[in-house]
């Protein structure tokens, strides 16, 4: 038999060549062999030999079937078919004791009667026929046989039977594994410790004889009925494995998974050499289990791979923290009492044994035993705990734990003695990748200063905990963080944290985290608990309690519980004003107050709170908070259409540039958005649009297409597009915004959703698509009403918009009813009054009540006095147009012309390509001109309008009206051909979509023009 081992050195090359050769048809192989040169040529002979066999192998059925064995006896004596009475080596089998993946164990006796004592015969299921196994057995068994100790099961013999079955003969021990033994007798902690001390004795003895066990676990630690401990399998692992690291048999490798590494030490997992310290570690795990009934690291870790990861890098949970009712019962105590017993010294001792670095564990088992003895005698133990509570608190307070992951980690580490490695990975809701990277990088640096290797290990643990921590990917990220948060919540319940401040802080963080990912209903009870616990245990004034209260307030606001939310914020505010200390918290409380008031539709009140927040924030050091308050107030002023958005926006921008440089963080982008809106209010709509588009692109990349921030940006894009006379773009942007808002809120009413509907409605109205506008106004009204009540300013404004749409659709009776309802209540602000009155004026005009209409419209500008000048300008033009329209309808042609021309001039300044508004003004101008006898000017004006509509939307009713008036103007100017054309086009549209009044005008025009002599002349 030619050994294959000889090929080992050249195998890779040989393997590749074989592949090449086998790819060729058989006939060509010989020739190919000749072509080999260089290195490859040296393998030619071997290849030739191998390939020569190929022919034979191919045609016959070498190895294709398993040969049959002629019958005899049972057919097989493998360990599976061993039977009582059979001989294995010098032993005769008496009874099978057990069988497992590793082999079988039998009770046996010496067949030759050399000893009376029975043995345990271990028949490992090894599939290796290693030449050196026998030699090694011989060597090792001498060493092992020397190990004599009352608590160690004697090793007698090892050998290979005639059939080639390896066996190991050991002292037969009749006992239970130590865990079962203690549980079945409900031994209390001191009794268990005494048992355990026997174990330590035994291991110490073995160590003194330079034998490391390597495989300590409860099933290898038996206890007899007399209470005597017996350790099994000392050094067997090494015997069977050889000199490498623990090497399981082929069977375990087949499935590709290691068997459970629960008791394996970190160095074992890493494949490093095992020492005495490894046994100490395993003993630590055994002790942990004896005391708590659980193994360390069992936080819902599913796979062996994750467990290995945890063993190598995660901190075990303190024994006193994992006490369960069952475990306590088995230890003859109540859970509380057991926890108290374990807390303190025992925790410390166990954790020292479980230290990751071998050098930090007990150096010898003797030391381990000595410390336990000291504990039993009530003496101080030598192991030093880290003062976890102190450090954890300090850490928690130093870093505003904004996210779920931080909470989960701290909770996971609660009970561990290594608080300094808690890492905060800030994935604040909406923050971009950049922010995460920066934060993480900062923390990494900090940790690196403290303990480099540790930091890396923990980072790995974090990453394994939260699979794929990346920027917002919508649902995927939420799910992961959600799991982590829920785990943290459960863990928090299970861990008995004695420090109330920490518990409150953790609850606040978990609740905040849940809120951050939109799980509002789940967050509410968590934060409620935090608040009440804080109130009960820490007092109203503690920072932790205030923080909890504010967090609770936010969740309440977001779930629509506005009154209760307001109560939280106001209470916090009162306390904070009184103490005057913590301005950042005060600013936070004020921000909350602002938010609630906005939801309630109280813009004035919200503005007041927003400015107070700015003032408070300006005096404290956290610049990001300052930026946030500037952003808030700017946005609010913009939304409420008040002047004063630009100044805070500028300040916020400047600050943001300072703080963030050119990093695109979420907050920075938000600030840019606010600034752009303020610019737009101030008249720079083009600049604002470009800026907003840029922001939109960046946000899409950073935070994904489904996030709320993006929806808000789209809203702004829509508004600005409207201002620039491009309602179609606005409609596109806003439809998308509505979609996102609705998706994000799962259909629940939110301010964002309501706002999006509002502006979309305005866009439709602007584009003269009144039916669609009506639908959107209704949505906006419903949503705003659900949020802040039907009497809030935004809800009322939405209803007035709907009423105007009804007017435009000719449904004057319905419009009237709606306005009447609105007028029953007083206006909340002058802006609201101005808007509603203008709209009502248009209804009155359509109803023919011209004087009333004029009266309503005339005073409108006063209402916008609070708005920014550019806002006022922008409002002015439409107002003028409305006024002009009303005057026109009332027959006051000259006045109307004047007003309308002013409006036109204003709009031309800011529009690029005309707009529906401008077109409508032009039509009105044309009408006035016709009435005033200025036909040519009328033609010019109406031409402009109809040209616009041809480009924009030829089928719109307004287009029809533009054509109609153009026809009339042309007719008045004597250009009958063109007039007829125009009339045809007007007919085409208005027959289908015209209001009755419009159709009436159309018919009238037809009659007029047909009756015109010139027309007849041209036939």
């Amino acid at each position, binding site marked *: 038999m030619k050994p294959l081992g000889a090929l080992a050195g050249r195998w890779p090359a040989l393997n590749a060549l074989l592949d090449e050769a086998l790819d060729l048809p058989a006939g060509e192989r010989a020739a190919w062999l000749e072509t080999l040169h260089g290195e490859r040529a040296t393998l030619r002979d071997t290849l030739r030999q191998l390939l020569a066999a190929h022919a034979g*192998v191919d045609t016959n059925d070498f190895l294709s079937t*398993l040969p049959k064995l002629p019958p005899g006896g049972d057919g097989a004596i*493998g360990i599976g078919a061993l039977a009582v009475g059979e001989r294995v080596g010098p032993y005769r089998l008496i009874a099978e004791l057990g069988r497992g993946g590793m082999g079988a164990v039998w009770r046996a006796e010496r067949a030759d009667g050399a000893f009376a004592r029975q043995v345990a015969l271990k028949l490992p299921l090894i599939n290796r026929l290693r030449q050196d196994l026998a030699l090694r057995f011989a060597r090792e068994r001498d060493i092992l046989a020397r190990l004599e100790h009352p608590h160690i099961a004697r090793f007698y013999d090892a*050998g290979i039977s*005639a059939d080639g079955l390896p066996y190991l003969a050991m002292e037969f021990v009749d006992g239970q594994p130590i865990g079962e033994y203690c549980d079945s007798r409900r031994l209390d902690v001191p009794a268990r410790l005494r048992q355990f001390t026997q174990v330590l004795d035994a291991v110490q003895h073995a160590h003194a004889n330079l034998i490391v066990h390597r495989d300590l676990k409860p099933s290898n630690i038996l206890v007899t009925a007399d209470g005597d401990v017996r350790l099994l399998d000392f050094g067997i692992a090494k015997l069977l494995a050889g000199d490498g690291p623990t090497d399981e048999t082929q069977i375990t490798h087949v499935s590709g998974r290691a068997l459970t590494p629960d008791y394996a030490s970190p160095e074992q997992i890493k494949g490093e050499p095992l020492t005495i310290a490894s046994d100490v570690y395993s003993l630590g795990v055994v002790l942990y289990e004896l005391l708590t009934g659980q193994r360390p690291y069992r936080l819902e870790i599913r796979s062996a791979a994750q467990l290995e990861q945890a063993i190598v890098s995660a901190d075990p949970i303190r024994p006193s923290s994992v006490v369960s009712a069952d475990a306590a019962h088995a230890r003859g105590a109540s859970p509380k009492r057991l926890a108290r017993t374990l807390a303190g010294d025992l925790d410390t001792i166990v954790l020292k044994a479980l230290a990751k670095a071998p050098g930090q564990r007990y150096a010898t088992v003797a030391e381990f035993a000595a410390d336990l003895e000291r504990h039993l005698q009530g003496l101080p133990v030598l192991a030093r705990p880290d003062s976890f509570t102190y450090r954890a608190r300090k850490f928690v307070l130093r870093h505003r734990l904004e996210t779920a992951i931080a909470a989960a980690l701290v909770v996971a580490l609660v009970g561990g003695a290594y608080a300094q490695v808690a890492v905060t990975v800030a994935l604040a809701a909406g923050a971009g990748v950049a922010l995460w990277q920066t934060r993480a990088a900062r923390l990494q640096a900090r940790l690196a200063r403290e303990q480099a290797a540790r930091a890396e290990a923990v980072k790995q643990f974090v990453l394994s905990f939260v699979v794929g921590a990346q920027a917002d990917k919508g649902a995927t990220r939420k799910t992961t963080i959600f799991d982590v948060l829920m785990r943290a919540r459960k863990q928090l319940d299970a861990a008995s944290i004695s420090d109330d401040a920490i518990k409150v802080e953790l609850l606040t963080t978990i609740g905040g985290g849940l809120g951050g990912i939109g799980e509002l209903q789940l967050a509410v009870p968590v934060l409620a608990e935090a608040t009440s616990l804080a109130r009960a245990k820490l007092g109203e004034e503690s920072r932790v309690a205030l923080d909890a209260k504010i967090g609770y307030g936010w969740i309440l606001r977001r779930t629509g519980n506005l009154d209760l939310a307001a109560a939280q914020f106001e209470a916090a505010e009162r306390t904070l004003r009184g103490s005057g200390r913590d301005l950042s918290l005060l600013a936070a409380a004020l921000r909350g107050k602002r938010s609630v008031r906005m939801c309630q539709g109280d813009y004035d009140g919200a503005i007041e709170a927003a400015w107070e927040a700015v003032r408070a924030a300006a005096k404290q050091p956290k610049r990001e908070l300052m930026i946030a308050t500037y952003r808030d107030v700017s946005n609010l002023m913009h939304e409420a259409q008040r002047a004063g958005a630009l100044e805070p926006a500028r300040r916020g921008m400047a600050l943001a540039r300072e703080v963030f440089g050119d990093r695109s963080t979420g907050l920075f982008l938000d600030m840019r958005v606010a600034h752009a809106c303020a610019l737009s209010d101030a008249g720079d709509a083009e600049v604002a649009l470009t800026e907003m588009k840029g922001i939109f692109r960046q946000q899409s990349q950073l935070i994904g297409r489904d996030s709320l921030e993006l929806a808000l940006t789209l809203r702004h894009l829509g508004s600005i597009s409207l201002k620039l006379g491009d309602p179609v773009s606005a409609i596109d942007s806003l439809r998308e915004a509505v979609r996102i808002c609705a998706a994000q809120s799962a259909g629940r009413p939110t301010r964002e959703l309501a706002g999006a509907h509002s502006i979309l409605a305005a866009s439709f109205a602007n584009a003269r698509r009144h039916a669609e506008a009506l639908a959107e106004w209704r949505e906006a009204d419903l949503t705003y009403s659900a949020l802040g009540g039907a009497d809030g300013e935004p809800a009322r404004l939405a209803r007035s918009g709907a009423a105007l749409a009804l007017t435009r659709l000719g449904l004057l009776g319905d419009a009237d009813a709606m306005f009447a309802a609105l007028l029953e209540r007083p206006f909340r602000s002058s802006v609201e009054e101005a808007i509603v009155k203008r709209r009502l004026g248009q209804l009155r005009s359509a109803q023919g009540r011209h004087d009333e209409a004029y009266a309503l419209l005339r005073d409108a500008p006063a209402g916008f006095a609070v708005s920014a000048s550019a806002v006022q300008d922008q409002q002015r033009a439409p107002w003028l147009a409305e006024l002009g329209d009303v005057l026109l309808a009332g027959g006051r042609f000259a006045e109307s012309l004047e007003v309308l021309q002013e409006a036109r001039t204003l709009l031309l300044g800011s529009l690029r390509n005309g707009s529906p508004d401008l077109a409508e003004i032009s039509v009105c101008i044309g009408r006035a001109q016709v009435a005033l006898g200025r036909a040519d000017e009328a033609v010019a004006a109406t031409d402009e309008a109809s040209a616009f509509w041809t480009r924009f939307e030829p089928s719109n009713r307004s287009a029809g009206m533009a054509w109609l008036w153009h026809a009339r103007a042309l007719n008045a100017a004597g250009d009958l051909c063109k007039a007829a054309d125009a009339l045809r086009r007007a007919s085409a549209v208005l027959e289908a979509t015209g209001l009755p009044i419009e159709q009436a005008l159309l018919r009238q025009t037809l009659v007029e023009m047909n009756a015109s002599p010139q027309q007849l002349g041209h036939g």
Partner: protein
Amino acid sequence: MGDITQLLQRAREGDRQAFDQLFQALYPDLRRIAHARLAPHVRGTMLDTTALVHEAYLKFEQSARLTPADRSHFLAYAANVMRSIIVDAARAKRAERRGGDAAHVTLSTDVADSVAREEDEILDVHAALEELGQLDPRLAQVVVMRYFGGMKEADIALALDLTDRTVRRDWEKARLLLANALRS
């Protein structure tokens, strides 16, 4: 049979005891199958025993929800178990031949017998396979699964995460090497 599910789950999680217990539960079936493969009166070759292995597998599948990966692992695992059983049987046969009651502790593994028998083939292949395993573990595994386990190409491919083609090539190469080793 409900506990099989739990055992599988725990074994999947790396619970060693569960693994052991699973083995215990499986073992009788696998032994029966392995012996069936050796018994001369069983007609046909691998096909029948493959069916038997699958039958054993199906027993678990009914009560457990096994993933396709589980099935492949099961089969691969079974093949290795059967190898040990079959090798044991061959050893026993050889021992019988040499005449029963051997003296205690022959630490040498020399085989001094010139008459080649079926059991010799098995043991020789086993030994050569050991060496092949040192050279290229994957090739050896393919042989174990085919020769001892009677697994089909597709199943081997699944278990080892290879293509059918690769398995075929591996088998080809392995047989070349083994033939070379055994027939000098």
